[in-house]
C-alpha cells in the first residue's frame, strides 16, 4: 500500500519512536506485562504502515461487493439497507410464540427467527419419555404441521424472511414451512429465509444430533439440491461458528472450524453430483460477536476473504455469488453475567457494533437477562432498540467498512486469516471436518478452560465477576415457561392422531422408509409426510430405523 521510500522513512522515524517508548515504559510501567487479543494474538503498542507493508489494496481488500469481499458483500452496504434485525424467539406453545413474533414485528423487527425446543431439535414428539421436562423450554414445541400452521398464523410468508434454528431434522421443518406457505397461497419461489441445517457443529459443539454423519450429510445435500430447483431464495444452510465460540473456542478457532465445516459441505455436495455454482450462492454463515472489539471486526473481515479464496481457488467456483460469505451474527451469550445484569446491555451493544463494523447481513442482540432465564418482552425490546440505535442514530452505517485501512485492523485481519488457514490445513490433514470432530472438540475445550482460568486469576477482567463486584437488584419479570405446556401439547398431539387419516400416514412413512435406503432426494417425501400430518417424531423414527443414531465420543 505504501511506496518503498516512504516505508524506509517511516522505519527510520519508528526507531526514534521506539526509543522514546522504552524510556516512557521504564519510567511508568504499563498496565499489564503484555497485551493479547482473546485468541492470544500479541497486540503491539502501536501499528504503523510497517505492519501492513505487504498489503496490496486490490489483491487483499478490493472494493466492497467484489472479490475477495474483505470490505463487505455489497457495493454500498448499509447505505442501501440496514442489516436485518432478527431476534431469535420461541418458547412454550406455537400460540405463545406466534404472539411474540407479532409483537416483535410491530416493534420494527424485520425478520423472524425461530427457536425450537430440544425435543423438536432432536426429533422427538412432546409425549416422548425423553422429552419430559423439556417441552417448550428453550424454544417452541413443534410436533406436526398443525403446530407450524399455528406458529405462522396471520404472518404472510411472502413478506417476512424466517430463520429457523434447526439442524438434524432441518429438512423436515423446511418441508413444514413450505407446506404452510402453500396453505397461505405462497409458492416456494417466494419464500425467503434460512434453515441452520449445520450438523457438523452439532457434533462438535452443540449436541443436538440424531443420525450419524454420513446420512446427516446426505439430508443436507438433499436440501441443497431440492432448494436450488424449487426454493431458489432460501439459504439452505447457515454454517455456524456461533456455537463453536459459545462452547469456548477463540475467534481464530471460530473462523477456522466454521470454514472447515463449510469446506466439508461443499465437498459433500460436489461428491453427490451437484455443480458448485448451483448451490454455493445459497450458503450462509453464522458468527458470534464477542467482547474483544477489534479482534471481532477483523475476524469477520478475515472470514470473508478466506472463504472467497477457498471457493474460488479450492473449489473453482465461477459465479461471484459463490465466493461471497454472507452471515448472520448473534452477540455472545456466554459473555453475559448473572451478576449486575444491566451491564449486559452495554456488552451486547459493543458486540453488536463490532458485527456491524465487520459487515454482517443480519443480527440478533442478546437480552440482558439471558444468564438468568429466557428473555422477557421488556429485555428483548431493549436488545432490539440497541440495534436500532446503532442503525439509526450513530452513523456507523453511513460509509462502507469505515475501519478498512486501519493499520491495526488490517494487520489483525491478516493474522487471523493466517492462523485460521493453518488450522484448516491441519483439519485437511486429519481427513476433513467430519474426521476432525474430536480434534476440534479438544481445541475448544482447552480454550474454554484457559478462558475460565484467566478469569479466576484476574488476568481477564469481567465486571461484576472478578472486579467491581457489588450488591445488585435481580431483574424482576423473568420469563417462566408454563409447566402445563407439555400437557397441552400432548393433548393436542393425541387429538391430531385421532383425527388424521392414519392409513395415509402409514403409507407416507413406508414410502419414506423405502426411499431413505436409496439415493433418492428425500425432500418431496418429507413434504408428503408432513402434509399427511405425520409427526416429526414419527418421521425421525422412520429415519432412525434406516440411518441409526449417532453415538458421541466423549472428549475430555
Amino acid at each position: 500500500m505504501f511506496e518503498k521510500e516512504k516505508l524506509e522513512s517511516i522505519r527510520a522515524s519508528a526507531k526514534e519512536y521506539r526509543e522514546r517508548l522504552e524510556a516512557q515504559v521504564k519510567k511508568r510501567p504499563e498496565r499489564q506485562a503484555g497485551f493479547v487479543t482473546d485468541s492470544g494474538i500479541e497486540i503491539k503498542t502501536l501499528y504503523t504502515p510497517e505492519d501492513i507493508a505487504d498489503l496490496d489494496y486490490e489483491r487483499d481488500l478490493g472494493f466492497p461487493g467484489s472479490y475477495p469481499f474483505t470490505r463487505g458483500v455489497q457495493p454500498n452496504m448499509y447505505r442501501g439497507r440496514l442489516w436485518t434485525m432478527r431476534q431469535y424467539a420461541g418458547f412454550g406453545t406455537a400460540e405463545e410464540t406466534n404472539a411474540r413474533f407479532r409483537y416483535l414485528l410491530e416493534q420494527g423487527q424485520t425478520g423472524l427467527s425461530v427457536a425450537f425446543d430440544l425435543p423438536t431439535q432432536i426429533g422427538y414428539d412432546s409425549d416422548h419419555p425423553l422429552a419430559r421436562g423439556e417441552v417448550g423450554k428453550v424454544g417452541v414445541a413443534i410436533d406436526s404441521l398443525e403446530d407450524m400452521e399455528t406458529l405462522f398464523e396471520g404472518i404472510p410468508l411472502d413478506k417476512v424472511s424466517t430463520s429457523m434454528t434447526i439442524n438434524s431434522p432441518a429438512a423436515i421443518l423446511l418441508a413444514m414451512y413450505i407446506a404452510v406457505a402453500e396453505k397461505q397461497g405462497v409458492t416456494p419461489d417466494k419464500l425467503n429465509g434460512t434453515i441452520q441445517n449445520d450438523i457438523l457443529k452439532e457434533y462438535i459443539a452443540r449436541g443436538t444430533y440424531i443420525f450419524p454423519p454420513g446420512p446427516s450429510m446426505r439430508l443436507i445435500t438433499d436440501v441443497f439440491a431440492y432448494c436450488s430447483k424449487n426454493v431458489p431464495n432460501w439459504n439452505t444452510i447457515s454454517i455456524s461458528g456461533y456455537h463453536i465460540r459459545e462452547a469456548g473456542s477463540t475467534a481464530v478457532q471460530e473462523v477456522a472450524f466454521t470454514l472447515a465445516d463449510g469446506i466439508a459441505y461443499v465437498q459433500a455436495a460436489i461428491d453427490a453430483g451437484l455443480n458448485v455454482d448451483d448451490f454455493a450462492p445459497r450458503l450462509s454463515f453464522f458468527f458470534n460477536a464477542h467482547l474483544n472489539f477489534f479482534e471481532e471486526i477483523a475476524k469477520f473481515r478475515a472470514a470473508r476473504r478466506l472463504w472467497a479464496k477457498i471457493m474460488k481457488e479450492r473449489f473453482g467456483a465461477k459465479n461471484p455469488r459463490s465466493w461471497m460469505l454472507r452471515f448472520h451474527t448473534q452477540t455472545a451469550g456466554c459473555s453475559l453475567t448473572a451478576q449486575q445484569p444491566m451491564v449486559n446491555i452495554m456488552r451486547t451493544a459493543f458486540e453488536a457494533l463490532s458485527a456491524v463494523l465487520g459487515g454482517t447481513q443480519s443480527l440478533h442482540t442478546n437480552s440482558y437477562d439471558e444468564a438468568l432465564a429466557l428473555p422477557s418482552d421488556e429485555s428483548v425490546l431493549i436488545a432490539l432498540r440497541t440495534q436500532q440505535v446503532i442503525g439509526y442514530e450513530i452513523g456507523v452505517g453511513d460509509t462502507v467498512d469505515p475501519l478498512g485501512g486501519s493499520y491495526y485492523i488490517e494487520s489483525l485481519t491478516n493474522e487471523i486469516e493466517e492462523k485460521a488457514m493453518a488450522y484448516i490445513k491441519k483439519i485437511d490433514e486429519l481427513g476433513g471436518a467430519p474426521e476432525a470432530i474430536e480434534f476440534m472438540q479438544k481445541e475448544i475445550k482447552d480454550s474454554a478452560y484457559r478462558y475460565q482460568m484467566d478469569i479466576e486469576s484476574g488476568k481477564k477482567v469481567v465486571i461484576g465477576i472478578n472486579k467491581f463486584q457489588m450488591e445488585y437488584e435481580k431483574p424482576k419479570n423473568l420469563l417462566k415457561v408454563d409447566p402445563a405446556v407439555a400437557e397441552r401439547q400432548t393433548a393436542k398431539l393425541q387429538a391430531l392422531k385421532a383425527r388424521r387419516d392414519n392409513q395415509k400416514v402409514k403409507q407416507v412413512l413406508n414410502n419414506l422408509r423405502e426411499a431413505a435406503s436409496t439415493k433418492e432426494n428425500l425432500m418431496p417425501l418429507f413434504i408428503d409426510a408432513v402434509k399427511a400430518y405425520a409427526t416429526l417424531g414419527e418421521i425421525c423414527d422412520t429415519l432412525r430405523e434406516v440411518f441409526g443414531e449417532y453415538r458421541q465420543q466423549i472428549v475430555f
Partner: protein
Amino acid sequence: MSERPIRVLIAKPGLDGHDRGAKVIAQALRDAGMEVIYTGLRQTPEQIVEAALQEDVQVVGLSILSGAHMHLFPAVVEGLRAQGADDILVVGGGIIPDEDIPLLKEAGIAEIFGPGTPTTEIIRFIREEVAKRTQKEEGKQ
C-alpha cells in the same frame, strides 16, 4: 486415614447439549486432584444413577441449562436413594432461577452453583462436604 482421591461423576442430564460448563468443571476438579468421570450428553436420571454406582463416586455434579432441572435433578437424587446410595453428594449448576433453588435443596441437591461461580469455590465445597461425610462414616464404624 487413607488419602484416596475424591471420585466425582459429572453428568449432563436431559437433552441439553451445552457442556462447556460441565467440561470446565470436570477439568478443574481433575486439576485439583480429584478423579473425574464425565458421562457425556443426553443422560437419563437412571443412567446417571447407574454410572454413579458403577464408578463408586462420592460426588455427582449435574449441569443443565435448558430449564428441565426441576424434573431431572430430583430424579437423580431419588434414584440414588432408591439404590441406598444417599451418602453420595449431589450438586448442580447451570441456569437455575433463584426461586427453584430452595426446592432443589429440599429435594436433596446439596448446592446449586450459578453462572460466574469460580471453580475454586466448587472445589472447596466438595472437599468440605466429602470430609464431613467421611468423618460421619468413620464415626459410625
